[in-house]
């Protein structure tokens, strides 16, 4: 069983190795692409088989352990794989979405120059390796290592168009912000080792250390899963190609933070204060991101902020004390958000621009893309039959059970807003008058539509597979319709859709406070914080340190050199070669000696 789970790690690793080393293959374009797609599909199949056979509870399947770090003869950390009820479903999600995106990329990236295409698919395979490695990590150290490797892949893939300066800056910004948060994560892992002597996911002993470790680990989560203050890198990450945004910055990578909490649940469970903090941070993120998404003109930026908002949902759900809601929302969100991104990709592919204002009336030209996009939007908004409704509702229910009323209200408001901005996008892009660009828009090739169809299927069906995620609570789907938060969420969603349709569909209802909100948000309060932090904080500090080192510490050293030079000039006078100076010195020397002898002698 465990060998199946290892396929998603070693097969793409082999592909990456082959593509990296044999550059003629990499430069060959399509063959390299097909190799990578084949390995992605194979890993997906293997993951599904592993998932079906995964032990629901009890002893997790452990495999392929070789020790990595050694300490005084004993091994303290090893590399291995652990397949259990938590890692199996995540593996499926990762590999499935990755496979769909890779197939999609065949079409979307077709016009890229051949070496770039090879490079793109090589890094894609590396991403699957890193993500699977993290999902199957048996201990915290391997989790951290793969976590950083995932960050590396995001750096490489965001910066795929490295000749575009904005892409370069976005890639670097992503790494800076995530690694800034990883300071906390690494400290947490180190503290975990120091207190427990190992890197296991649970912490026996006093809860004080557990709270601290949990808090530190949560810092890492905030960075990678773009919680409010540290979410600034996500919108810029849209500089990468759309399939990358779909895979990394919508479905899998950003969910790594949430998965960390789920994976290390025993630690977080023993740290209630951290959990309450999570609910609040999650709720606030959900609301703020939803508002920001409302005013974006770039279709990918809207989806990016929407992901940010949904991540807030998941973190809030985890904060309630049971990881089931968060985890379930993570999987369903992965499916429909990936679908939305791919659909957005094919829209961009069709009209050649991201800007919503230049789109319109695409429904007629690209029926399938429009249909799939709308299906995804409805799933995201939480309309019943689709999976979004079930997972979002479960989150709200958990918030209610945990009596976290504040975050519950915020999340409900966010739910309404989500429906509102998704409908805005649908109206601006697909309905309404056709803009100049949409006239010559053309439907995307089947190789792009097929994966979108597969994702649409899962987005619709995922709601009913509640039974296999983390615990064996088999909740019947109809159970949700009757719960209070479920009904409230549904009403809000429908209201949001109606309002948005009226405003953007028919153009009535001007205002609604959106422009005021737009002005404030576009000023980028949080982003400005970071930019100022760099321009007024870190760079001048570095400048001062550099100046001090070059001219003060180094200056002091040169002072000795200067003193030597000047000193030697003074001494030169003594050997002027002039006769009389010499005699004078002779006399004075003799005088001193004689005086010393005389005075000494007499005494």
């Amino acid at each position, binding site marked *: 069983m465990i060998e199946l789970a290892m396929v998603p790690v070693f097969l793409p690793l082999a592909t990456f190795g082959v593509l990296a080393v044999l550059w003629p293959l990499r430069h060959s374009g399509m063959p390299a692409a097909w190799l990578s797609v084949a390995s992605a599909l194979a890993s997906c199949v293997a993951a599904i088989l592993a998932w079906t056979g995964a032990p629901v509870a009890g002893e997790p399947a452990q495999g392929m352990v070789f020790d990595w770090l050694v300490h005084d003869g004993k091994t303290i950390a090893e590399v291995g794989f652990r397949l259990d009820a938590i890692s199996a479903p995540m593996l499926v999600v990762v590999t499935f979405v990755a496979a769909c995106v890779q197939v999609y990329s065949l079409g979307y990236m077709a016009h890229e120059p051949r070496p770039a295409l090879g490079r793109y698919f090589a890094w894609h395979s590396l991403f699957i390796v890193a993500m699977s490695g993290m999902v199957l990590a048996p201990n915290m150290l391997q989790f951290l290592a793969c976590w950083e490797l995932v960050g590396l892949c995001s750096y490489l893939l965001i910066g795929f168009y490295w000749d575009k300066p904005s892409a370069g800056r976005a890639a670097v910004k992503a790494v800076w912000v995530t690694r800034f948060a990883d300071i906390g994560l690494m400290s947490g892992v180190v503290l975990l080792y120091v207190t427990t002597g190992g890197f296991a996911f649970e912490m026996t002993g006093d809860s004080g250390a557990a709270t601290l470790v949990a808090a530190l680990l949560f810092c890492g989560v905030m960075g990678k899963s773009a919680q409010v203050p540290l979410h600034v890198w996500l919108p810029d990450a849209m500089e990468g190609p759309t399939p990358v945004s779909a895979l990394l910055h919508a479905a899998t990578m950003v969910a790594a933070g949430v998965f960390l909490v789920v994976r290390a649940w025993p630690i977080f469970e023993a740290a209630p204060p951290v959990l309450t903090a999570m609910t609040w941070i999650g709720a606030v993120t959900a609301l703020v991101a939803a508002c920001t998404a409302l005013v974006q003109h770039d279709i990918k930026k809207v989806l990016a902020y929407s992901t940010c908002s949904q991540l807030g949902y998941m973190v809030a759900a985890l904060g309630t004390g049971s990881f089931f809601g968060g985890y379930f929302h993570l999987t369903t969100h992965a499916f429909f958000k990936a679908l939305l991104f791919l659909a957005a990709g094919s829209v961009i592919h069709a009209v050649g621009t991201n800007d919503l204002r230049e789109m319109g009336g695409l429904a007629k030209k690209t029926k399938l893309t429009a249909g799939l996009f709308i299906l995804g939007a409805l799933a995201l908004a939480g309309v019943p039959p689709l999976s979004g409704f079930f997972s979002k509702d479960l989150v709200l229910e958990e918030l209610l059970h945990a009596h976290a009323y504040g975050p519950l209200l915020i999340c409900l408001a966010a739910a309404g807003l989500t429906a509102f901005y998704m409908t805005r996008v649908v109206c601006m892009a697909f309905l309404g008058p056709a803009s100049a660009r949409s006239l010559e828009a053309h439907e995307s090739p089947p190789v792009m539509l097929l994966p979108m169809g597969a994702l649409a299927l899962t987005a619709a069906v995922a709601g009913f597979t509640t039974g296999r995620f983390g615990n064996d609570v088999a909740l019947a789907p109809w159970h949700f319709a009757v719960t209070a938060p479920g009904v409230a969420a549904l009403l809000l969603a429908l209201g949001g859709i109606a309002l948005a349709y009226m405003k953007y569909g028919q153009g009535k209802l001007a205002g609604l406070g959106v422009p005021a909100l737009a002005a404030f948000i576009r000023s980028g309060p949080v982003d400005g914080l970071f930019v100022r932090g760099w321009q007024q904080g870190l760079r001048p500090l570095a400048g001062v340190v550099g100046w001090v080192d070059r001219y003060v510490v180094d200056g002091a050293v040169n002072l000795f050199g200067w003193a030597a030079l000047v000193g030697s000039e003074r001494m030169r006078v003594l050997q002027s070669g002039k006769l*009389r100076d010499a005699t*004078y010195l002779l*006399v*004075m020397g003799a*005088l001193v000696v*004689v*005086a010393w002898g*005389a005075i000494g002698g*007499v005494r």
Partner: protein
Amino acid sequence: MTAWILFVLVAFGTLVSAVMVVRTADLVRAVLWLAASLVATAGLYALLDAGFLAAMQLLLYTGGIITLMLFAVMLVRRGPEAPTAGLIANPGRALTASLAVFGLVAFTVAEAGLPTEPGAGGSPSAKLLGQVLLGPLALPFEALSVLLLAAMVGAIALARRKDPEE
């Protein structure tokens, strides 16, 4: 009592001529003042009952060295340029040095508590000096002649004007 007066007179003469040697700008006059000073010293030797030595002084010093000096001055005198001011930039330092030396010697002499009264046997006569020179000091005496010879040869070798064809 007359010894004191004579001593003071001759001592004063010596000191004044010594100072004049140092102070006069013109070289020839300086040499002449030196001669005066040496003659005065010879007088002092006489006062110390060292008649033979006074004679030697007069003969060797004033006769030999002064004439040699005059020759040298004439030889090296370069055309009409005026005798450059003999004094150098910082006489102050030199003065302090000399006074310091004088003070030091005076201090040591005063402290040393030498026997003030002349020893027994008065001052040695020339005969006794001759016996000493050829007695215990015979070797240095002979060595002295070799030294004088060497000095002469050296001086000639140094100052000889090179023959053009060499």
